[in-house]
């Protein structure tokens, strides 16, 4: 019976240690965290993430009472979490789709969209393509479609000046906001993209950078010349090819540009942290951060 007593003693020790820890944590918690700090949880699009991270950092440096927690996951995750009440602000690189609007209505969430920046989707190719052609590659949206649905599989089909090399297509993972926007611009009903799926803008850019004869798409802020080269896109309205650039997006002539949003549940109330942070993002200082991250500032209102 001595063995049993010993094990009792041991288990008793462990249990009382755990209980002590829990009680200690409860007692110390209010002392360690300042109760006056207001928190705000932001989740969603990885495209918007770098802007909001930088904004949150600057905002929190100035306002010690604010505790803003920013994480990625993608537009879909952000919107789903806003509907479930897990986050206060969702970052999205697209507008909510009908399914998400239904889900929001079902739970009584009123999604309010705040456009905070403009972004363009740039088609990028490995430098080998541009070097073989001797000039930047120029495509119409229909030609882009033919490449991405696998109708054209050789570069010689795209342009007779290009060699008979395979087109290696990189696309984003399912559910990516960038992918959703790209496919809205390019695909027709019933089309299916064929390619190698990469998780996130940086991974896709690196894949194109390291793979000769490859093509892919990223947000304008992620283009890293001269390691990858941008493709000019044909604009029907002006009848010319347009290089993806800030100026072109601002003028509204680049065909593949989109708005980036912060989404809140209802209009944020005056004086709340959410409202103050939104105002900061839209202030000249916040918009400077937008530009600094490679996106395009948006005029207020």
């Amino acid at each position: 019976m001595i063995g049993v007593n010993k094990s009792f003693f041991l288990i008793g020790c462990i249990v009382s240690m755990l209980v002590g820890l829990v009680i200690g944590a409860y007692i110390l918690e209010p002392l360690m965290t300042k109760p006056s700090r207001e928190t705000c949880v932001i989740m969603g699009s990885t495209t918007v993430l770098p802007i909001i991270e930088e904004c949150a950092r600057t905002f929190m440096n100035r306002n010690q009472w604010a505790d803003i927690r920013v994480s990625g996951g993608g537009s879909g995750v952000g919107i789903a979490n806003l509907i479930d009440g897990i986050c206060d602000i969702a970052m999205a690189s697209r507008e909510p789709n009908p399914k998400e609007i239904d889900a929001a209505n079902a739970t009584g969430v009123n999604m309010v969209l705040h456009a905070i920046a403009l972004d363009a989707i740039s088609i990028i190719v490995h430098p080998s393509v541009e070097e073989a052609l001797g000039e930047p590659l120029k495509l119409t949206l229909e030609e882009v479609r033919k490449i991405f649905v696998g109708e054209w599989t050789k570069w010689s089909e795209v342009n007779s000046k290009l060699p008979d090399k395979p087109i290696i297509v990189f696309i984003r993972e399912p559910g990516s906001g960038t992918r959703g926007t790209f496919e809205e611009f390019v695909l027709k009903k019933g089309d299916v993209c064929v390619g190698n799926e990469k998780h996130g803008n940086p991974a896709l850019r690196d894949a194109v950078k390291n793979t000769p004869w490859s093509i892919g798409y990223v947000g304008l802020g992620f283009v890293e010349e001269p390691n990858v080269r941008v493709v000019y896109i044909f604009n029907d309205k002006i009848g010319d090819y347009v290089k993806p650039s800030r100026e072109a997006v601002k003028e509204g002539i680049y065909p593949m540009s989109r708005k980036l949003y912060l989404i809140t549940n209802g209009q944020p109330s005056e004086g709340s942290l959410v409202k103050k942070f939104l105002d900061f993002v839209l202030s000249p200082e916040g918009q400077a951060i937008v530009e600094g991250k490679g996106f395009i500032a948006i005029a207020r209102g």
Partner: protein
Amino acid sequence: MSHIRQLASQLKALGGAGLITMICALLTVTILALLVLFTLGESIPAFMNWTGASLTWENKWTAEQDKYGLYVLLTSSIMASIGALAISVPIGISAAIFIAEILPNWAKDIIKPLIELIGAMPSVLYGFIGLKVLVPLIQDLFDIYYGQTALTASIVLAIIVVPTIVSLSSEVISAVPIEYKEAALALGATKWQIIRHIVLPTAMPGIMASVILAFGRAIGETVAVVMVAGCSTELTKPFWNYLQPIYPMTAAIALGFGEAEIGGTAYHVYFAVGTILLAFAFLVNFLANLLMKKGGVRLRL
């Protein structure tokens, strides 16, 4: 009834400590059971075709457009695992023979823990090295443009599963009774003849079990595979081309599940893929246990 009465009396004798151990044991079993039930339950809508899009055998896996061709995922997973075994089995078994039969005991005590340490390394490291070293190497070696292929995945997986084969096989080989070897030695057999005709046949069921367990590890490995497999939504034909990018089951779940809308088609389909993986895991463990019980050498996993 007598069993239960015996258990009850044992519990009584142990008192509180016995109760705690019993609760802990029940907890682990319950968690496992819940996990299996949850996965199965969530996958039923996909298998029964209750959702909008169904699982098919098409050569197309594009969750974004609700095309769920299991052909791509199953072929990819099996290609990568078989490829990994083709590389790791000869190396692993040879190493196991060397360690168990030739190496002196003091060296065994150093080498075996080292190999087990390699087996315990986080697999993301292998993926990282695969991506930065192996992918460019394969691009150069085979003169292809995209180095993330079935072969790359197979090599990385082979490195991951070699320790499993070596440590288990050498254990089994060491457990071959010394009397068998002494009898052969008395008949004038050489060391190599003993290994080839006595040791290997006796240990064969156990070695097979280690290979099957390695297969299970390879098919379930996720992180390293996502990084080097390429994740192509469509396979080329014939499927046995090891220089094409593939899209194994684990990679599909890892890339797509984060953005899948809860309760949507994709969500249930990913659980269905999870169920297939679970089935593989059960089958592998069942077979390995069966083989371990069979044969001259008994060794419990």
